[in-house]
Structures are given as structure tokens and as C-alpha cells.
């Protein structure tokens, strides 16, 4: 079924591409428009998706469904949260929190080791990028 799931996902993407391309105008063969290539790609992707769906409909003996580890899911949530809250709480706090979560997920450590390592990585990152390379980071609540 793994192929079928991929097929359905890409079919959705193809439909989106086709609808949007038609909306923006595909032009003619003599004068191809903005949606010409995307429409063509949408149609080809749709055909390939159908092949994947048909091929994946019958599960192959021995094939197992893909499982995602809880560690990866938590890490992904932490990463997206980081990009969404960095502006509000600032680079230093957001990075410290992210590093703490990731170190904890990667290997269980004593809490003081975990916090110490996270503080060190955050400090080095700030010094290297913020001070040496002069990247302007959001200060967030530490700046107000």
C-alpha cells in the first residue's frame, strides 16, 4: 500500500497544479503562457500517480507499512515550533529550548548535563553567528 499512498499524494499535487495552471493561463503552442510547463508537469505527474496507485493497490507479500518513530515526530514538532516562536521569544531562548529537546531525544542524559550542553551550544552558536558573522537575531522577550 506504500506505493498507493504516495500515488494518492502526488495525484492531489497534480490536480492542484492543473487547476492553478489553467487559472493562470496556459497560452497556446505558438505562444506558451505562464501555466504551460506546470500544466504539462501536472498531467505527467497525474499519469505516474495512477501507475503508482494501480501498482500499490495489491500489497506485495512481505512488504510492511512505513512506521514513523515518536522521536522523529517530536523533533519535527519542535522544529516547526522553533520557526514559529523565534520572533516572539527571541533567538537565545528558542534555540536553548530546541537544543534541549533535540539532545534529550537523541540520548537520555542527566538533567544538568543536558542543560549544560544546551547552554553551551546556544552560547557558541550566538557568538559565532550573532557576534562574529553579525547575523541579526530576534531578541524577543530578552530585548524588551
Amino acid at each position, binding site marked *: 500500500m506504500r506505493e498507493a499512498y504516495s500515488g494518492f499524494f502526488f495525484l492531489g499535487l497534480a490536480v492542484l497544479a492543473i487547476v492553478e495552471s489553467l487559472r493562470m493561463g496556459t497560452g497556446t503552442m505558438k505562444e506558451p503562457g505562464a501555466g504551460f510547463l506546470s500544466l504539462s508537469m501536472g498531467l505527467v*505527474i497525474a499519469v505516474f500517480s495512477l501507475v503508482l496507485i494501480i501498482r500499490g493497490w495489491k500489497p506485495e507479500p512481505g512488504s510492511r507499512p512505513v512506521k514513523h518513530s515518536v522521536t522523529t515526530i517530536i523533533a519535527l514538532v519542535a522544529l516547526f515550533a522553533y520557526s514559529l516562536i523565534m520572533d516572539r521569544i527571541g533567538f537565545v531562548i528558542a534555540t536553548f529550548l530546541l537544543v534541549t529537546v533535540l539532545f534529550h531525544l*537523541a540520548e537520555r542524559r542527566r538533567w544538568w548535563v543536558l542543560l549544560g550542553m544546551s547552554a553551551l551550544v546556544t552560547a557558541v552558536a550566538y557568538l559565532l553567528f550573532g557576534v562574529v558573522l553579525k547575523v541579526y537575531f530576534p531578541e524577543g522577550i530578552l530585548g524588551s
Partner: protein
Amino acid sequence: MEALNHLIYGFGIVLQPANILFCFLGVFMGTLVGVLPGLGSAAAISLLLPTLFHVPGVSAMIMLAGICYGAMYGGSTTSILVNIPGEVASVVTCIDGYQMALQGRAGPALGIAAFGSFIAGTFGLIGLMLFAPLLASFALRFGPPEYFALAFMSLTLVTYVSKGSVIRSLMMGCVGLLMSTVGMDPITSTSRFTFGLTALLDGFEIVYVAMGLFGLSEVLLNLGESMNQEILQTDIRHLFPTRQDWKDSAKPIARGTVVGFFLGILPGFGSAITTFLSYAMEKKLSRHPEKFGKGAIEGVAGPESANNAASSGTFIPLLSLGIPVNVSSSILLGSLMILGFQPGPLLINSRPDLFWGLIASMYLGNVLLLVLNLPLIGLWVQLLRVPYSILGVLIVIFCEIGAFSVNSSTEGVLIMNLFGLVGYLMKRYKFEGAPLILALVLGPMLENSLRRSLMMSEGSPWIFFTRPLSLVFMVVSLVFLISPIFTHERIGKIAIETVEE
């Protein structure tokens, strides 16, 4: 003679103190990237690019190119000592390199890998120096139909040499082309697939895509998993191979150099597949094929030379045509554009400082790499003791900060994370990243030349088949596109299966 004068001019550029430093930093980072599993040269270039915005373009490119070819040297260290390839191009080196290390011959294995890489890298450079300007002057005759056909052939070849399913590779190529249409249409100025997001008006930044697909996703896949990083407890002595070792390795190095260089020029082959082909070839040609897999020095010398020669070969289409042939050169092409260069056949003549400076820097870089990889081998071995649970987190943090620093905006971080998720899912569902990134980079050129060709021919697609050069490119493309329907034998697959045997 003219080439020699140009080379002297190039050395004049690279021997400036700042450029020597950038060259050293590049090859040092390259070796680091090669040694450390989980961080490829594509992700490393994307990661470092934002820090080079204030550096002169030529210096920045000297450093980024150093990462590319430097990674080929470093990759062999982990393969030989830990049995984990630091780079895909070093997978094959694990087979006989690790066996040699188990037999107490880690020194000669590391030595022949470094010397083979140096010899192949140097010969590759001579080839690059001679062929690239020739190809560039030839490409001045190209019109839109030739460019379309060339881009189409590049994409077809990439999918053909992939190791997985053709349908999946083709699908990734198409998704990459679709992604390349995001942003402002250069002809009509219509905004496409931006869904009101201003960050998408310029399309997908290659830096975010590469960092997400090749940096972040790799860590996400391995986070929390224990990785065997047991370094072989062996004395690394006798790094200089014996006379017998040289005798056994001379022909494999020569063959690896030639095969690697010419295949490196072709789209899709890159460094990884050439190593598989070189290994398969050495095994077939050997009088003692039974020695392969049990510590044959030929199995280290051939592939290690091939990947370095291929690394030089990839620069030919990149610098003379503006066509990338693998993931790393796609990112380098993106970097060229971001740093203000205009890739294409005019680049060598319009920016000789860049081209000849780069060539000279590679000669210097190869010497620096030999020093970094032989006397300083102990340093890299120590680095291998850093556990992946720490290294992986550091890679993620550098990716996040790197993405932020491109435009000093969290939108970039969000987009990069999104591609990290996409890359993770692609790996889990067995979709390859190379066709996608290549299509994303080649997309604007392909679309532009397709539309201009159709306008020229008043809508007739036969224009691609009536001009001799584009006809050749199209026929090659169609052969590679159609042949998997009739046969399951493909070069990538065959080479990998031979090695697995």
C-alpha cells in the same frame, strides 16, 4: 601555451593570502564533511553559503568548490576505519578498505586512497582546464532548442542512472520542474503558485531546499538511533604504500581516473555511481577476483581515484554550459547565481578570474588535501569519536541558523523545516532527491528555452528534431527514457548489484 598563461594568471589570484585561507577552509570543511557521516557536501555548501555573502565572489566559490572535492578525500577515512561511508561516493571503499584495516593494513589503505585521489584529482584538473573552454566556445552556437534538449537530456540521464524505480525518479524530476515554476513568470510577470506568500515570489531558494532535503532529513531519519561508531583499534602506520601496493594499484588508479573523469561530465553519474562502476570493472579485469571483498588494494585505489576524477569532471558542464550534473553541482550553480555570476558559455570569457582562479585553487587544494589527509589523519580519527547523538543535533542547529541567516527571517527557517519533512518522507517512501534538485535548478532554463523555441517555430515541436545538435540530445534522451520499459537493466542498478555480489 595559452592555457599555461591563463593558469599562471589563476595562481596570481589564488596565491593572495585571503584566497589561500579560503581554499584551506574549503578543503578543511570538505574533509570534515567527508569524514562525518550524515552531512553531505550539498548540505554543507548550503549551510555555509549565507556566511559568504559579504566575501568577494571568487573567494567564496574557491571555498565552496573546495568543500565539493575535499569531501571525496575525507569520505575514505570513515569507510576504512569505521566501515561507515562518510559520503555516498565512499560506500564502495568500505568493502576492501575496512577488510584491509582488519588485517592491520589501515595505513596503506588510507595512503593509497589519498595518493590515488591526488593523482586522479590532478589529472582531472588538466582535463577540466583543456575541455571546459573548448566546450564553452562550442556552446556559443547553441540556441533555445539546443538548450532545451540539453536540459531535457540531463534530466533523463539522472533518472536513468538512479538506483531505484524509474517511475519514482521521473516523478521526482517532474515535481522538481513543477517546483521551479513557483514565483514570478519571467516572461509575463504573472505570480505562480505563491498563494499570497511574498517569500515565494522569487521561487524556492535552493539553499532552503538543499539544507532541508539533504541536511535536516538525514538527521531526522537517524535521530535517537544508535550508530556503530566503533573505531578500529589499529596502528595507522606505513601510510606510504609499498612497491607491491603501487604495482597493484597503478592500473586501477589510471582506469579509475579516465572512467571517473569522463563519466563525471555526464549528468547523473557524479562521483557515487562512478565508484560502483570502477569497482565492478576492477573486479571483472582482475586475475584474482576472489580477492575482492577480502582486502584487495585495487578495490580501494580504483574507486577512490574515480570519485576524485569525477569530481573534477562535474565542473566542466557546470562552468562551460551552466549545467549541473549532480546534487552538489546543482547547489554550486545556485551559489554562482546567488553570488552574482551568470553561469553559461560566456562565463569563462567574461569572468576569467573566476574560472582560472578556481582551477588554480583546485591544484593548491589537492596539495593541501594530501597534507590534511596523511600527516593529520590522527586528527580526523579523533573527530570520529564524537557521538552521532551530539553531531546530529549540531547539524540541525547549524541548518536552522543557516536558513535564518539567508534573509534574516523565520519564514526561511519554516520553509527549510518543511523541506526537511519532505526529505524525510521521501527517504522513508524511497523517492530520490537528486532528480528533484536537478530539475529545480535546471527548470528555469528548460522552461525559458522551451517557450522561446516554440515561439521560434510557431508552435511546432519538430524544431527539436530538425536541428542536428538538439536532434542528437533528443534521441539520446528518448533512448534512455524508453529503454527501461523494455529492460530492467540500468547502469546504476547493474553497478550496485555487481558490488553487492
